[in-house]
């Protein structure tokens, strides 16, 4: 046994936590139904954080605190704030690196690793920083999903302004690995032979960590003890979660790898995996599995909206408490693995079928800025929002006035009924006021508000109809049938009031998912990216729904706007 693997004698069960923290954190008590998963998480923490290597445990706990602080995760801030209280804050270059990796992994490039090397960190130390950041992501995800009671009183000290992490320039220097080398001499060695046996190949992500076999071994233990057991969720369901959360994290490497694994494991065709990546709602998964992916995508490290994980949505679909905990645990592992890959820059094992790039991050050409966690420069509401957050309630009145039309439009799209939409508009603003303290400017205020409107509308619709009927409309066979040319200026063809009525009726007749896309984009005039963020869809998925909705609407309007010579007498 090598020196590194010898260190993997971490204690298990409560003893390990008592030795590490002096108590068993509630975060792990909340997973008591999954003792194997807890042991695996504990081993990862031991290998990545507790064991002193190039960095001390104290330095690494500072990193965990920075991750929790950047993600606004109060549970983990309290857990690690106290642990780091007496230690000096770690180097600002490290903090910047960590925050960027935790919140903006898709922007990460070779350049970021070079900045740490430039201030004296060797590759093994950088690997420790990356792995510790990944553990921080895992712990924050667990806390987001399981919402344990705090273990300690919250320490309000922060590690510095998050804005220091951005804005970023997009670097094209992304060919990996950024660290180490993808050593090919390890395939038959322990612990790498696990991959050869299980997958038939050794993924590059693990090859680049060959300097830390104890870490690789802990990662293998996490894979085997979290992904393989089928006591609650099935292996295929877990692989769906890995794929969907990796897609939400815009992780090209993992999406390519897990698509192949799904194909080999369960015979899931690559086209079906592509559909899950782009828009799981359009896939052939069961309604329950779609709900599972909808909720776990909310737990992704890259957060596109202020939505929270809602276990009740999963209970409605018959998932047990153990299955819900397991879904959170799997999502946390995915965020660990995705962050690790982004940090070390492991090169692809398979040619990617879906290559996430700059276009998925920030769509406006010529401007490079992240869409998360840096206050959007153009948000016209930021001053008013800040004043409301500061206690000036009266200012909220202007926000209601500004946005009531947009909120109403979104609700009308979901509810399909204008009177219900009017009533629900009030509820949305009351919820927004109640939660405005949590709004951190990660998106525009209007996008955040639209997300609340969508959640509120969806909830009302659920109360009105059985869940299964939400998207049951059979539109799979849709093909354009009206192929007569239209008159040149259709706007002038009917009076405005009649035109508005036709549009309203046409939109209200669309299946819900297309109706909302058309309303957000064409009526509320959100950008494609804002609409995608509000609906928690990828940009390609939003575009697909929008196009389908527009084509269906065209079909409805065609009889009224086609050229006279093409009309049938009864049109």
């Amino acid at each position, binding site marked *: 046994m090598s020196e590194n693997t010898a260190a993997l004698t971490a204690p298990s069960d409560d003893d390990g936590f008592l030795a590490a923290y002096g108590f068993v954190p509630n975060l792990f008590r909340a997973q008591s139904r999954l003792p194997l998963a807890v042991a695996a998480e504990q081993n990862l923490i031991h290998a990545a954080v507790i064991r002193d290597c190039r960095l001390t445990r104290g330095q690494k706990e500072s990193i965990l605190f920075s991750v929790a602080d950047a993600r606004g995760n109060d549970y983990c801030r309290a857990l690690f704030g106290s642990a780091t209280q007496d230690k000096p804050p770690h180097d600002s270059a490290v903090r910047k690196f960590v925050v960027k990796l935790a919140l903006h992994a898709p922007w990460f490039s070779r350049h970021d690793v070079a900045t740490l090397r430039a201030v004296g960190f060797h590759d093994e130390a950088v690997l420790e920083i990356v792995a510790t950041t990944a553990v921080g992501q895992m712990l924050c995800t667990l806390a987001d999903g399981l919402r344990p009671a705090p273990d300690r009183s919250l320490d309000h000290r922060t590690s510095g302004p998050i804005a220091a992490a951005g804005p970023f320039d997009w670097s094209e220097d992304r060919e990996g690995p950024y660290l180490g080398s993808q050593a090919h001499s390890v395939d038959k060695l322990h612990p790498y032979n696990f991959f050869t046996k299980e997958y038939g190949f050794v993924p590059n992500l693990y090859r680049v960590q060959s300097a830390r076999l104890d870490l690789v071994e802990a990662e293998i233990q996490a894979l085997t003890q979290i992904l393989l057991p089928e006591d609650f969720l099935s292996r295929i369901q877990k692989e769906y979660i890995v794929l969907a959360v990796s897609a939400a994290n815009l992780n090209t490497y993992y999406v390519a790898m897990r698509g192949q694994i799904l194909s080999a494991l369960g015979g899931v065709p690559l086209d079906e995996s592509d559909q899950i990546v782009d828009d799981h709602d359009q896939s052939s998964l069961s309604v329950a599995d779609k709900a599972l992916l909808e909720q776990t995508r909310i737990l992704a490290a890259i957060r596109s909206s202020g939505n929270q994980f809602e276990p009740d949505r999963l209970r409605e679909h018959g998932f047990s408490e153990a299955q819900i905990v397991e879904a959170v645990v799997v999502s946390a592992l995915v965020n660990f693995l995705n962050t690790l890959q982004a940090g070390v820059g492991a090169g692809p094992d398979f040619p990617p079928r879906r290559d996430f790039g700059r276009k998925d991050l920030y769509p406006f050409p010529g401007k490079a800025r992240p869409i998360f966690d840096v206050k959007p420069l153009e948000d016209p509401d930021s001053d008013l929002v800040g004043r409301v957050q500061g206690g000036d309630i009266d200012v909220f009145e202007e926000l209601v006035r500004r946005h009531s039309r947009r909120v*109403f439009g979104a609700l009308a799209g979901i509810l399909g009924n204008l009177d219900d939409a009017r009533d629900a508009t009030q509820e949305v603003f009351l919820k927004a006021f109640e939660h405005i303290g949590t709004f951190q400017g990660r998106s525009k205020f209007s996008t955040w508000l639209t997300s609340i409107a969508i959640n509120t509308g969806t909830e009302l619709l659920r109360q009105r109809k059985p869940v299964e009927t939400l998207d049951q409309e059979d539109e799979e066979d849709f093909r354009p049938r009206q192929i007569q040319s239209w008159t040149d200026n259709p706007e002038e063809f009917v009076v405005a009031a009649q035109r508005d009525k036709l549009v309203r009726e046409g939109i209200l007749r669309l299946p819900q998912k297309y109706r909302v896309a058309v309303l957000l984009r*064409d009526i509320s005039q959100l950008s494609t990216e804002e609409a995608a963020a509000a609906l928690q869809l990828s940009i390609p998925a939003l*575009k697909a729904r929008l196009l389908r909705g527009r084509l269906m609407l065209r079909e409805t309007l065609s009889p009224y706007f086609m050229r006279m010579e093409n009309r049938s007498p009864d049109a």
Partner: protein
Amino acid sequence: MLSCAEFLAEFGDYLEHSASPEVRLRLEEHLRECKTCTVIVDSTRKTIRIVTDSDSFTLTAGEVEPIVNDVMARIRQKTR
């Protein structure tokens, strides 16, 4: 050349004039040969124009103010 089904699956960005040059060339090659898809592109663009310009889902000023007043009254009552 693209089939009509492939064209219809891909022309979303083209409608908004945001397709990449390569995609645009492929789509336009199809359009030169296909009258049906040309009609669909033209009428879908006009659909978007009509929908975007319509007031179908707009609250009137007379409808906005009661919402503002009700929301603020409920907030003030809660925070009192």
